[in-house]
């Protein structure tokens, strides 16, 4: 039987929205069209931020752009998001965030009052984070060439401890801690866009996470790896870290908290909460004997007060290499309430609503 694919593929590839989903398409775009031009030892680390030597000190440096629509949503706005996102990226390296830049790309016709509201929100969030916005840039594009307002922030943080934090540090037997319920940010935005209303409204989880991370480190928890859950959701983060660590994870689905409104909105729109974006949640990999202590520390801090152990790191699959793209990879396996197992993959492209 001839089973060649009958469908010829398009010759010229264009950037599609799925390339910005933070999942497999994004990785492929970076691997093929970005990294080859920029190769160096820090890019090769493949983290959301780079840890750099500066004299005798080490600093952490990161950047993030914010293009959310609508600009204001329940639980936050683009300004709060722009500070939280960059502060959280720094915190996930175990750094203390210090300084942020702020670049504004404004669309002709944006009410200056709107800009004022966003800037006030940035200032308030920066004050809460204890970071200073120290430099920036402003550009204006013609009407129709932007979505009102885009923000880019870059941030610098200081590493005051010598603990290595990253996927390679993940060890067999580590427990996986999740800092709270998932899917709030993505569903708050979707519900606003689709005009859905619920009895209890959906609020974004957009929040600063460096306080919780700092508390874990101060308490002497030997944190092996941290990851904030953003685009691609919990599932994509777990799949990427399993691959980066070269280890298998076993995650218990019934332990993953999802609020009623998020679950309801996901059911209505045909989406999987495991793949929905968050802006104020993280997972931490800690040694099993310190897990209860870590949970107690996180419980005392508001953003992580509902932390739970959701899984455990297993052994290295035979023949696997950490970070392997092609060979045997570490896998994230999800065990559901029925005791049945399935693999978690990265989000392939955009999460598209199902037909029925």
């Amino acid at each position: 039987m001839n089973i060649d694919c009958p469908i010829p593929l398009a010759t010229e590839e264009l950037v599609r929205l799925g390339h910005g989903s933070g999942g497999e398409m994004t990785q492929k775009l970076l691997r093929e069209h970005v990294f080859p031009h920029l190769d160096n030892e820090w890019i090769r680390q493949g983290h959301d931020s780079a840890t750099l030597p500066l004299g005798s000190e080490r600093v952490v440096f990161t950047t993030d752009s914010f293009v959310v629509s609508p600009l204001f949503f329940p639980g936050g706005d683009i300004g709060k998001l722009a500070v939280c996102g960059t502060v959280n990226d720094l915190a996930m390296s175990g750094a203390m965030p210090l300084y942020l830049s702020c670049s504004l790309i404004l669309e002709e016709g944006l009410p200056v009052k709107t800009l004022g509201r966003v800037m006030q929100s940035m200032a308030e969030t920066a004050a809460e984070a204890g970071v200073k916005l120290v430099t920036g840039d402003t550009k204006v594009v013609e009407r129709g060439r932007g979505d009102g307002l885009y923000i880019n922030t870059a941030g610098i943080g200081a590493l005051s401890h010598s603990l290595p934090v990253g996927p390679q540090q993940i060890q067999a037997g580590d427990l996986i801690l999740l800092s709270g319920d998932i899917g709030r940010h993505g569903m708050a935005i979707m519900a606003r866009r689709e005009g859905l209303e619920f009895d209890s409204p959906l609020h974004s989880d957009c929040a600063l996470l460096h306080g919780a991370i700092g508390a874990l480190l101060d308490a002497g928890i030997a944190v092996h790896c941290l990851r904030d859950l953003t685009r691609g959701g919990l599932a994509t983060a777990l799949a990427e870290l399993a691959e980066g660590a070269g280890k298998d994870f076993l995650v218990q689905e019934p332990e993953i908290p999802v609020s009623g409104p998020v679950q309801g909105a996901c059911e209505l729109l045909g989406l999987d909460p495991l793949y929905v974006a968050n802006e104020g949640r993280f997972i931490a990999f800690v040694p099993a004997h310190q897990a209860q202590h870590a949970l107690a520390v996180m419980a005392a801090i508001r953003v992580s007060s509902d932390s739970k152990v959701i899984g455990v790191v297993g052994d290295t699959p035979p023949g696997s290499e950490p970070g392997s793209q092609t060979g045997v990879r570490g896998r994230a396996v999800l065990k559901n309430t029925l005791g049945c197992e399935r693999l978690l993959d990265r989000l392939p492209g955009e999460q598209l609503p199902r037909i029925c």
Partner: protein
Amino acid sequence: MKYLDEYRQRSSIHKLAAQVNDTVTRPWTIMEVCGGQTHAIVKYGLQQLLPAQLQLVHGPGCPVCVTSLEIIDKAIAIAARPEVVFCSFGDMLRVPGSNGDLQSAKAAGADVRAVYSPLHAVRLAEENPDREVVFFAIGFETTAPANAMAAFLARRKRLRNFSLLVSHFLVPPAIESIGSAADSRVQGFLAAGHVCAVMGYEEYLPLASKFRFPIVVTGFEPLDILEGILMCVRQLEQGKHEVQNQYARAVVRSGNMPARSMLEQVFEVATQDWRGVGSIGNSGLQLRSEFAEFDALKKFRPVIAVPETDSGCISGQIMLGHNKPSDCPHFGRECRPEHPLGAPMVSTEGACAAYHRYSRQVSTNEH
């Protein structure tokens, strides 16, 4: 969550699975017709709870998968017109046509929008009188009433800038076609609950008698599916071939009469081309002549190159229950969800995408 948690409860599901295990005494092959059921089966790993002798094969009920290459090419041609706002359900956007998909057309400048309802497209037409709004009306009997309603409303509102690109499919002729195939392995069917919520299940009675296989109208939650399977294997073990209704909380024998009457007013039965399967008589819907002005094919007359045929594609074999996705040499290799070679790898309801996402062997590494 209320009305869902009850149907996902561990103890009830394990109890039903045990009953299926107790009932089955020899090998049986059952087809779940609907892609939504396939999705639930692989997502919840229900096969892991069932006896090895019971094989589930996945039917043709994935609307994205059965939509022909020709109609996708025509959709892309219409979407590329500068005056057109092309609206579609989300999953259709990534189905490859002969040369790219609707998302690529969007990246190249077409105004393509994912909407949740055809009535949203009607509203867009009202709000944008200077644009031509086209809705990609695809799917089975489930989505057809809302699409019929869109045409009905557009006529009542005298909208001249709204049209439907219709590619509708009917389930019973597909079951008939599978039952008639000489090499069919399927011994019993789970019919799609939501299709029957609209149409009822009277039209399945002659099919069950003619082919002597049981048909159980089944819902979409894990408990529904296991109960449907149990009802089906009980009949098989007893040598019966009746139509039974597992999904009684949503389905009545004669269906939803207002929805059926809306369908009847707007659409008529026509021959339909199933991707990977071929042409099946009386298996589709087209707009009645009274609604011809809302037919996007008549309005835009898209000209496309003759599409490559699907004759070599294994998707037809999968949708007829002859092969499983993992039988395809491209599965999980060249053909992946972010780079689909065929339609069943696109929608989460497509058997290949569902398999890829949820049920690649957990015990072996496939990359």
